[in-house]
């Protein structure tokens, strides 16, 4: 790089470039490269061109790096401060994220060195008989679409190994190497008998538990079925009971209506002989049937009887009377409760005694009612 005139030094001065440091750095790099180059030269001859190319490339990169990083005394430290690893970003809460540049790790993949290392150690698998190395490589790469899918992944591994075994078997047979173990050949195994016993026990246990589970399920199903049968039977019994009870209650009601009917007849002074004739003439069961089938007519009759009674001039029952008085039954309801001259002049209820009585008197009177449980017991 030839410097042109005064412009470059001026620019450098402006940027505060540290020439001494840069030079030192360059020397270091050159030394490192020379060392590396020497190491490569020892091992490789034919790939020197490629190495040269890569070196040249690296040189170019180095220069660029130097130019970019000028003006910094401690490049690496500054780098570390500037760049923030990608993973740290999640902890940065605010919108500052946009301004940060995550750095990626530099990848080293020195192909020539790798190949030379391989060449140094490689076994001549193509020239060796197969029985020497016993390694088989698949013809096409094993593809596993989803690595998380355990079943398919293991299946892929299995298939790969199985195919290798088949190929290897033919190759080994061809070379006359004993492959399968005769059944009478016993020797120490990788897994001890104790270990295999444990495995077997585990298998047996698993099978037993599966069997037990199946048995339990069967039992449960049976039980469930049995229960259903029982429920059905119970329901049947309940229905029968309900029917009989209904019959009995309807019977009871019909006799009640019959009694009412009789009362009504007597109250209205019907001819005794006619009703008596009726009473004697009618078959009891016939009457029951009528009552059973038509409760509505019975009620109608009941209502009619009551109306008759009221029309006859009989007073309704005292309770009804009281209630009518209290809540109003007929007549104007407005201003009924308001006081007037008469009511306010009425001093009948006034008594000094009552005024002096303790406040809780009413409450005491109310307390005469027994508690709920007692009432329940009394019932």
């Amino acid at each position, binding site marked *: 790089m030839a410097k042109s005139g005064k412009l470059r030094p001026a620019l450098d001065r402006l940027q505060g470039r540290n020439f001494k440091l840069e030079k030192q750095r360059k020397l270091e790099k050159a030394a490192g490269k020379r060392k590396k180059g020497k190491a490569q030269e020892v091992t490789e001859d034919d790939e020197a061109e490629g190495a040269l190319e890569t070196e040249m490339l690296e040189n170019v990169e180095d220069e660029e790096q130097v130019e970019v990083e000028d003006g910094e005394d401690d490049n690496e430290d500054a780098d570390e401060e500037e760049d923030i690893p990608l993973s740290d970003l999640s902890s940065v809460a605010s919108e500052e994220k946009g301004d940060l540049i995550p750095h990626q790790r530099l990848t080293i993949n020195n192909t020539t060195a790798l190949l030379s290392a391989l060449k140094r150690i490689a076994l001549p698998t193509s020239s060796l008989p197969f029985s020497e*190395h*016993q390694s088989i*490589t698949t013809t096409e790469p094993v593809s596993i679409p989803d690595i998380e899918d355990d079943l398919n992944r293991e299946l892929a591994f299995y298939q790969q*190994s199985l195919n*290798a075994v088949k190929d290897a078997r033919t190759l080994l047979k061809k070379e006359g190497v004993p492959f399968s173990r005769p059944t009478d050949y016993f*020797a120490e195994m990788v897994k001890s008998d104790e270990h295999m016993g444990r495995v077997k026990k585990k298998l047996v246990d698993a099978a037993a538990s599966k069997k037990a589970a199946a048995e339990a399920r069967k039992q449960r199903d049976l039980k469930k079925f049995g229960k259903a049968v029982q429920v059905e039977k119970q329901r049947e019994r309940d229905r029968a009971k309900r029917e009989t009870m209904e019959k009995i209650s309807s019977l009871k009601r019909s006799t009640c209506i019959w009694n009412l009917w009789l009362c009504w007849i007597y109250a209205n002074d019907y001819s005794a002989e006619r009703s008596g004739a009726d009473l004697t003439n009618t078959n009891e069961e016939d009457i029951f049937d009528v009552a059973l089938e038509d409760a509505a007519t019975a009620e109608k009759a009941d209502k009619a009887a009551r109306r008759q009674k009221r029309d006859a001039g009989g007073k309704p029952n005292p309770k009804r009377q009281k209630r009518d008085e209290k809540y109003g039954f007929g007549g104007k309801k407005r201003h009924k409760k308001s006081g007037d001259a008469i009511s306010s002049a009425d001093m009948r209820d006034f008594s000094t005694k009552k005024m002096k009585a303790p406040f809780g008197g009413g409450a005491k009177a109310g307390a005469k009612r027994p508690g709920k449980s007692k009432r329940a017991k009394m019932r």
Partner: protein
Amino acid sequence: MAAVYKALSKPTTRESDAKNKDEVRNRQRVLILSSRGVTYRHRHLLNDLYSLLPHSRKEAKLDTKTKLYQLNELAELYNCNNVFFFEARKGKDLYVWMSKPPNGPTVKMHLQNLHTMDELHFTGNCLKGSRPILSFDSTFDSEPHLRVIKELFLHVFGVPKSSKKLKPFIDHVMGFTVANGKIWIRCYQINETEPGKGKENEDTSAGANGVEPGAKKGKHGETNVSLIEIGPRFVLTPIVIQESSFGGPIIYENKEFVSPNQVRSDLRRAKAGRFNKRSEAAQEGKIRRGDLGLTSEGGRRNPKDPLDSQVLFA
């Protein structure tokens, strides 16, 4: 018994054949050891692998976690050309180092989803000291770093013929699959079932393979091959490849690898982030209320009105 069988079954022609190309014979010995601070599961895994690899030698736990180059000397001491080192960190994370001392590459991987044989309860079993078939996914050949890793697997897990504690039959297979940027390792027993016929038919039918395990039975006593898993199961994530054994420049680094520490701290920080957001929101609300003049103190005062009676008649 085993030794006698071995002696009898060893073909004589192979002996001379091997002598001819002695230099290309597959000779591997693996030093298996762990660092201090492994949990019992890590230890069980180590034992499982040790029992599966008859060409391995187990060593006492390594004291140091920083001076791993000591392993090179250790490997030399025990005549091993592979080191399989389990490094436990924080009593929970397990890192696996595979190296080829004295100057081979070193691969460091993170071990996850570990299930030992003991806890898996698989019914598969195999001879202790039988040689496995190694089954590799062809993804291993796609990239140079995976090729290196594959080669190392081949050396560490492939049992050579030369190992002493060998059994002459092949009854298990180890599967290495690359999926989702990780290496999944499985171990299966090979289960051969012959439908009805005797053993002599097996050799004749060997050429006609490709019989599915659940497929229809072969007509002429074809052997059905099926697999039963043995265990252990684990997943490896490559992190770094170094050029020499436990040292040297890094020639590969996995960009996608996120260290478990990072994951844990992220989780914790996400939790803290929630708190931060909440507290910030609370603070903002307080300020807003102050601005509206709803609090007795703080907040912004209304500017004095020049026509206020207090100003006018001051």
